C-alpha cells in the first residue's frame, strides 16, 4: 500500500514539474507502466488543478500562473505574435521563439510568470523604460503588452545562443570572450547613464548574434520582479549576484559591476569564483568568503580589474561601469603589440561599422545611437560635475556626474546664485554619502535625491523654503532637521527606513501639520533643534492636526504638550509609546480614534477635556499604570471595547442640568 502511495506521489510530482513547464501530461501517459494507478492519478491531478489557487500570490487576482502553453496549437498574442517554440525557461519567465505576422519576421517573446511580478503596471512601466534604451549591444525591445492577464515582451530574436552556451561548449577563445565583456560593459555604461540598472548580469543574459557580437538581454526585468519582495533567484542567478543584493541592502550600478566581474572571471578561467550547489552555502560564500586563489596564468592586469569589481563592499569596486570599461580598454591598449586584440580596431571604427552592421542585420532598426560618455565628451563646464540651467538670473542644478563621496554644491555658477536643486537632479545610483548644500538654495524639487542609497548626511540650510515630494525617498538618512525657513515639506521622506529622527526648528512657525510626515514607525523622536536633542517633543504651537500613527512607536517619548489648537488626533497616534507618562487631550478634539494609546504601559495620567464627544474602541489596551480616567460630561458615545484590558477606574462627570 505504501509502495502505491509512494509511486502516486512520485508520479504527481512529475506531473507538476511538467505542468509548470507548460505540459499538461495525461494520467495515462504518466502511468503507462502502472495502468492500475491511472484512475487514482487522474483524480489527484484533477484535485491539484482545482486547488491551484493556493499557489497564486495573494495580491494577484489574475487567472493562473502559467504562461500560455507551448502546445502544438500555437498561441497568438495581440493577434500578431504567434508563439512557435519554447526556447528558454528560467525561474522568472519563459521565452518563446515567435513569428511576427505583421512585420513577417522571427522575434523572441518573453512571458514572465505572474507570481514573480509585482503588478502589471510596474512591469509594463519598467519594460517601456527599457524599450527606450537604444544601443547596439542591447537586445532591442520591439513591443510590450498584456493579453488576458498575461504580460509579454517582444524583442529581437538573437539566433546564435548565449555566452552561457558558448562557455558551456568550451570553445570560446579568451580574447573573444573578453571582447564580449567589453561590449557588454559599454552597453551597461550607456544604460546606467540613462538611469537603468540591469541587476541580473550573467552569461545566460548575454546573447551572441550571427555577426559574433554580444548583446545584453533582460534589461531591468529582474528589477520589476524584485519589487514584489518575492523574487527568489535561481541558483544560476544567485552565482552572479552581488553581496549587497543577497543581504537585502540597497543595490545600485555597482551591483552590476560585481556581476560583470563574475562574468569576467568566468570567461578568463572557465569557472566562477563561488560555486557551491547549495544556495545557502553559496550565499554565505558570496557574502563572506575570500576570493579563491587566482589560477596560474591569469593575466595580472585583468586580475586587478576583476578583483576590484568583485570587492565585497560596493565602495571598493569601480565607481562606475564606465571606469570598468575604461580599465578594460587600457588593458587592450597595453597589449596592442602582444596578444592580438582585433576588437580594438573595431571599437575605434565603431560608428561606421555599427551602422553597417545594423543595416545588414536589422532591417527596421533605428539609427545607431551615439553613446556619449558623460562628462568626458561634454564641453567645458564651469560647474565641474554639475549640470545646470539658468532660470532668469538664478541657477538650477539639473544633474550631476561626479563620483566623489562628498558632494559640495556650489553657491554660484557663472556669477549667478544657485537657488534650486531640480527635479531628479541627483536621482539614483550616485556614489556620495554626504551632500553639502549652500545657503543660497531655496527649493529642493521632486525626487531631487531620490534613491541615492548611500546618502547619509544632508543638512538643510536655513533659507530653504520648499522641499517637494520624494526629495529624499530611498536615501540612507538617519536624521533630518527642518530649519525655521521651511514652509512647505512634501511627502519627501517616505521609504527612508534608516531615518530615526526628525528635528523641527523651534522658530519654525509655519510647519503646522504633522499628518503623514511621521507615518513611519522607525521614527523614534521628534526633536526641537538645535537644543535638546535628547529631550522629547515640544510641538509648534500652530500644529492643529496630529495624524494617524503620528507618534507610533516613539519609544523615547515620555511627555508631550499637545498645542491647544490640536483638533484631531488620528488612530494609533500614540501606539506603543512605552515611556509616555501623561498627556492632556486638547479641548478641540471631538473624538478619540481607535487604539490611540494601545500599549502605553507607563501612562499614568490622561486628561480628557470638556468637548470630547466620542471614545472609540481599544483605546487604552495595555495601559496598566492608568488608575483613573475621568470622562467629561460632553462625551456621548463610548465604544464597548474602549476601556478593554485597562485597569483604570472610570469616573463620569455628570452633565450640569
Amino acid at each position, binding site marked *: 500500500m505504501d509502495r502505491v502511495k509512494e509511486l502516486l506521489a512520485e508520479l504527481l510530482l512529475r506531473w507538476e514539474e511538467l505542468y509548470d513547464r507548460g505540459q499538461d501530461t495525461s494520467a495515462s501517459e504518466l502511468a503507462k507502466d502502472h495502468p492500475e494507478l491511472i484512475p487514482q492519478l487522474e483524480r489527484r491531478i484533477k484535485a491539484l488543478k482545482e486547488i491551484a489557487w493556493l499557489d497564486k500570490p495573494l495580491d494577484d487576482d489574475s487567472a493562473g500562473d502559467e504562461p500560455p502553453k507551448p502546445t502544438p496549437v500555437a498561441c497568438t498574442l495581440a493577434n500578431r505574435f504567434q508563439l512557435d517554440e519554447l526556447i528558454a525557461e528560467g525561474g522568472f519567465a519563459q521565452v518563446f521563439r515567435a513569428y511576427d505576422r505583421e512585420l513577417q519576421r522571427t522575434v523572441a517573446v518573453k512571458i514572465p510568470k505572474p507570481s514573480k511580478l509585482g503588478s502589471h503596471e510596474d512591469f509594463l512601466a519598467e519594460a517601456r523604460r527599457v524599450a527606450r534604451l537604444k544601443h547596439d549591444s542591447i537586445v532591442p525591445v520591439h513591443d510590450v503588452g498584456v493579453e488576458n492577464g498575461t504580460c509579454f515582451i517582444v524583442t529581437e530574436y538573437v539566433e546564435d545562443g548565449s555566452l552561457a552556451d558558448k562557455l558551456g561548449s568550451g570553445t570560446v577563445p579568451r580574447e573573444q570572450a573578453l571582447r564580449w565583456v567589453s561590449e557588454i560593459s559599454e552597453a551597461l555604461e550607456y544604460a546606467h547613464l540613462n538611469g537603468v540598472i540591469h541587476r541580473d548580469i550573467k552569461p545566460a543574459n548575454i546573447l551572441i548574434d550571427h555577426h559574433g557580437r554580444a548583446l545584453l538581454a533582460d534589461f531591468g526585468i529582474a528589477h520589476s520582479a524584485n519589487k514584489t519582495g518575492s523574487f*527568489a533567484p535561481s541558483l544560476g542567478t544567485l552565482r552572479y549576484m552581488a553581496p549587497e543584493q543577497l543581504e537585502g541592502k540597497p543595490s545600485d550600478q555597482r551591483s552590476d559591476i560585481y556581476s560583470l566581474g563574475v562574468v569576467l572571471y568566468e570567461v578568463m578561467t572557465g569557472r566562477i569564483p563561488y560555486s557551491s550547489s547549495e544556495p545557502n552555502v553559496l550565499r554565505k560564500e558570496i557574502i563572506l568568503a575570500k576570493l579563491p586563489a587566482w589560477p596560474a596564468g591569469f593575466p595580472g592586469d585583468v586580475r586587478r580589474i576583476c578583483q576590484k569589481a568583485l570587492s565585497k563592499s560596493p565602495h571598493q569596486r569601480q565607481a562606475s561601469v564606465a571606469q570598468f570599461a575604461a580599465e578594460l580598454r587600457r588593458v587592450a591598449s597595453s597589449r596592442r603589440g602582444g596578444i592580438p586584440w582585433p576588437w580594438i580596431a573595431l571599437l575605434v571604427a565603431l560608428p561606421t561599422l555599427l551602422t553597417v552592421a545594423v543595416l545588414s542585420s536589422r532591417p527596421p532598426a533605428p539609427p545607431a545611437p551615439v553613446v556619449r560618455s558623460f562628462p568626458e565628451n561634454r564641453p567645458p563646464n564651469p560647474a565641474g560635475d554639475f549640470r545646470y540651467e539658468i532660470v532668469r538670473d538664478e541657477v538650477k542644478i539639473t544633474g550631476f556626474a561626479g563620483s566623489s563621496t562628498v558632494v559640495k554644491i556650489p553657491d554660484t555658477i557663472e556669477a549667478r546664485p544657485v537657488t534650486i536643486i531640480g527635479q531628479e537632479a541627483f536621482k539614483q545610483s550616485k556614489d556620495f554619502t554626504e551632500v553639502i548644500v549652500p545657503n543660497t538654495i531655496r527649493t529642493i524639487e521632486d525626487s531631487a535625491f531620490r534613491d541615492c542609497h548611500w546618502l547619509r548626511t544632508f543638512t538643510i540650510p536655513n533659507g530653504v523654503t520648499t522641499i517637494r515630494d520624494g526629495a529624499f525617498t530611498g536615501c540612507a538618512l538617519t536624521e533630518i532637521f527642518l530649519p525655521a525657513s521651511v514652509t512647505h515639506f512634501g511627502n519627501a521622506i517616505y521609504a527612508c527606513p534608516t531615518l530615526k529622527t526628525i528635528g523641527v526648528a523651534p522658530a519654525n512657525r509655519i510647519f503646522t501639520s504633522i499628518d503623514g510626515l511621521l507615518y513611519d514607525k522607525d521614527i523614534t523622536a521628534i526633536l526641537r533643534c538645535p537644543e535638546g536633542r535628547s529631550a522629547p517633543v515640544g510641538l509648534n504651537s500652530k500644529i492643529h492636526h496630529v495624524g494617524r500613527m503620528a507618534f507610533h512607536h516613539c519609544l523615547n517619548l515620555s511627555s508631550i504638550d499637545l498645542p491647544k489648537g490640536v483638533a484631531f488626533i488620528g488612530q494609533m497616534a500614540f501606539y506603543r509609546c512605552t515611556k509616555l507618562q501623561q498627556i492632556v487631550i486638547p479641548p478641540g478634539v471631538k473624538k478619540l480614534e481607535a487604539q490611540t494609546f494601545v500599549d502605553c504601559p507607563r501612562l499614568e495620567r490622561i486628561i480628557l477635556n470638556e468637548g470630547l464627544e466620542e471614545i472609540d474602541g481599544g483605546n487604552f489596551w495595555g495601559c496598566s499604570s492608568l488608575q483613573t480616567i475621568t470622562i467629561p460630561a460632553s462625551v456621548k458615545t463610548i465604544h464597548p471595547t474602549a476601556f478593554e484590558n485597562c485597569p483604570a477606574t472610570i469616573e463620569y462627570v455628570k452633565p450640569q442640568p
Partner: protein
Amino acid sequence: MTVGSDTQLQGLIDLAKTGDDRAKTLLLDHSCDRLLKLTRKMFRGFPGLKRWETTDDVFQNSLIRLHRSLASMQVESVRHFFNLAGVQIRRELLDLKKHHFGPEGRGANHHTDHQPSDELGGVLANKADEPDDICMWGEFHAYVDRLPEEQKEVVNLLFYEGLTQEEASVILGVSERTIKRRWQEAKLKLHEELSGGSG
C-alpha cells in the same frame, strides 16, 4: 522576502533573543504584512463589511493581537518564528470570521450585504475553488489547523508567510523535493476537505 533577507531575519532573531524590542518589532513586520494581505483577500468577497469598518481597521485590531501574542513569545529560530506566526495569523483570521459571522456577529443576519455561501448559485459549484466569502475562508483556515504537523508547517511557510519553496527548504532544513511533496499532500488533503470529503 528574498532568500537574501533570510540572513537579516536571522540577525533580527538573534537581537530579539537578547531582548531588543525594536528587533522584535521589525521581525513582526513581515508577518503583519502577510496578515494584511490575507485579511484583504478574505474580505474581498465581502465589500459590504465596509458599512461597519474598513478592512484596514479590521486588520489593525488583528494586528495588535498578533503583535502582542508574538511579542510575548521567546523566538528561538527562524523555523520557530514562522511556525508561531503562521499559527497566530490563522487564529486571527478565524477570529475575524467568528467576529463577523458567529452567532452574534454583526454580519450574521445582515442579508443585504452578506449572502450565505449556499445562496451564491453556481459560483461555488465546486467547493474546492478559492473561497470567496468569509465563512468559506474560515472553514479553510480550520481545515489547515487539522493538517498533520509536517504539512501544516509547509502551508504556514508557503501560504501564510508567502515564502518560496526554496526558502522553505532552507528554513526547514529539508530538500526542495520534500517541500514539494508535503505541499502537494497538504493541497490534496485540503481539496478533500473543501469538497466535502469526496476527494
